[in-house]
């Protein structure tokens, strides 16, 4: 009982100093980029940066008049949504097999699926480009959909597998003695029981698909199949230079739905991002 230290005070100060500074690092660039979206082009690339601009809706008017922004949004939604549906259709049975059946080669097949996630897009960029060119799928959102689905398939499979592993085996045994067959067990018991995992996988796959850049750039070389992501990169404006205020505005338009989706699955985010290896 000689020395009883009061340890709370100083560590709290340090804690909020660290947490507060990192919050500023995260937020300030975003806020500043927000002001970019709301200023005229003349106040962006200047010899001396302007922190408090003349507010204007130039970017908004530009998007409404010159850029087919609705088309980009539609392309993004179609390609991303379609890819997620393809992924779920393929991944749920595969995840079920990996999670529940004991068969020869399970470890290796599972790892092969996982390892496709590790391949750099650039490695397959050239062959995929030639493949889609030969079947005439360049410049189509179908090609984007197929590519996005391929990129996310391993992730979706592993996330769902992880959630299926958590379902008690008894549940399936019960359904089997109750008279249900394999597919019915999957459909009526397993899928409803791991719905949070399926939703998590879908959301994370959607975010990765929205963010995909390289293939979108290669495959969608005409504006017909532009998605939001490529529209951003390609509208560096040519002779006009980069149209930053419009880019900023577009990125905020894409940011809001993603933020909402992520807040919805917040509890499952860490598990999803690690493909189920870390349970949050």
């Amino acid at each position, binding site marked *: 009982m000689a020395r009883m230290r009061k340890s709370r005070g100083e560590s709290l100060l340090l804690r909020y100093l660290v947490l507060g500074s990192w919050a500023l690092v995260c937020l300030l660039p975003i806020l500043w980029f927000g002001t970019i979206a709301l200023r005229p082009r003349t106040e962006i690339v200047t010899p001396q940066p302007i922190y408090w601009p003349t507010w204007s809706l130039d970017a908004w008017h530009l998007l409404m008049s010159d850029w087919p922004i609705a088309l980009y949004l539609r392309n993004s939604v179609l390609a991303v949504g379609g890819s997620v549906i393809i992924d779920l259709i393929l991944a749920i049975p595969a995840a079920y097999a990996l999670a529940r059946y004991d068969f020869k080669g399970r470890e290796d097949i599972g790892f092969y699926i996982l390892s496709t996630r590790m391949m750099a897009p650039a490695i397959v960029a050239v062959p995929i480009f030639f493949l889609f060119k030969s079947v005439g799928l360049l410049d189509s959102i179908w090609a984007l959909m197929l590519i996005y689905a391929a990129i996310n398939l391993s992730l979706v499979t592993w996330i769902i597998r992880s959630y299926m592993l958590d379902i*008690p085996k*008894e*549940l399936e*045994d*019960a*359904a*089997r*003695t*109750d*008279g*249900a*067959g394999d597919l*019915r067990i999957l459909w*009526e*018991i397993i899928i*409803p*029981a791991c*719905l949070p995992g399926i939703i998590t996988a879908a959301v994370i796959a959607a975010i990765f698909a929205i963010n995909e850049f390289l293939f979108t750039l290669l495959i969608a070389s005409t504006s017909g199949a532009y998605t939001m992501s490529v529209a951003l990169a390609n509208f560096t404006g040519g002779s006009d230079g980069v149209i930053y205020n419009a880019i900023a505005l577009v990125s905020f338009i894409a940011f809001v739905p993603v933020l909402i989706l992520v807040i919805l699955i917040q509890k499952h985010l860490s598990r999803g991002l690690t493909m189920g290896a870390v349970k949050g």
Partner: protein
Amino acid sequence: MASIRLENIVKRYGAFTGVQNMSLDIADEEFLVLLGPSGCGKTTTMRMIAGLEMPTEGNIIIGGEVVNDIDARDRDVAMVFQGYALYPNMTVYENIRFPLRMRRVPASDQDRMVRTAADMVELGAFLDRKPGALSGGQRQRAALARAVVRQPQVFLMDEPLSNLDAKLRQSMRVQIKHMQRQLRITTVYVTHDQIEAMTLADRIVIMNKGAIQQVGTPDQIYTDPANTFVAGFIGGPPMNLIEGTATGGRFTAPGVNAPCPANLSGRITLGIRPEDCTVGGGQVQGLVYGVEPTGDVTYLSVLAGTKQVEVKAARDFRSDIDVPITIGFDPARLYFFGADGQRIRGGA
């Protein structure tokens, strides 16, 4: 409505043998309990009857038909699981209806059957709840209702009460037994709790290390154990098993001296139930190790040599520890086991 016959069942997992050469006849309408420690093969045996596992060798015959390669879904066997295994996304009503739906029972009959089953377990008022909103006992009853609703040929229950608290367990035990008598369905019940086995069973099968140790009525198992394993498993506290030496009609071990049949000699094991021991008398000389009053009876542990002897003493018995004490055995209730653990019968 069906008898079950196991013929030389063997179940191997790789090099490990889960069940070795097991044969058993279960009569129609019988309540049979498989009793044993965890890992003894009792659950595996039950799962093979259910069709959830395939025997490596041997035949399983239900109602006169070999069912080895018939899917679990078609065996007309209902099972109640330790964790209840209620479908979390369905209401109690949908849970109970599920087996009817799977078996294509006419929709017009389903509702009536579900309600009858639910009333039988007094869950009529909870049909709209999801399992997550039920208490442990209610979940257990919902699982029972789901099993009885389709009037299966065979009931299988895998430690159905082990997740309930002691008081609830007692009342559920009575309810299960009542229901089984009422429905007259052949029932196989797996447990590691000897009280459940004794109270529920028509016959008990005691298993250890994948093999049957003894089959018999609860009375037979209690009064006439076949070996030290059975003797040490049944009773609360179980039988005292004291290793010692028999010579010239006396059994001796450190601190123990008791009569034994004159024809016994060499290393043997003496068995005596705590309820057949009395404080005072000359068979055990030792020190009081601990006293546990429970209200209606007091459990007394006596240290004799290095061996603790358990005694059921009078309810008002009290003592400090490390006090010298003597214990007497009822000579008519002594059991003797050979070095191989098997009972030595007849004797005297």
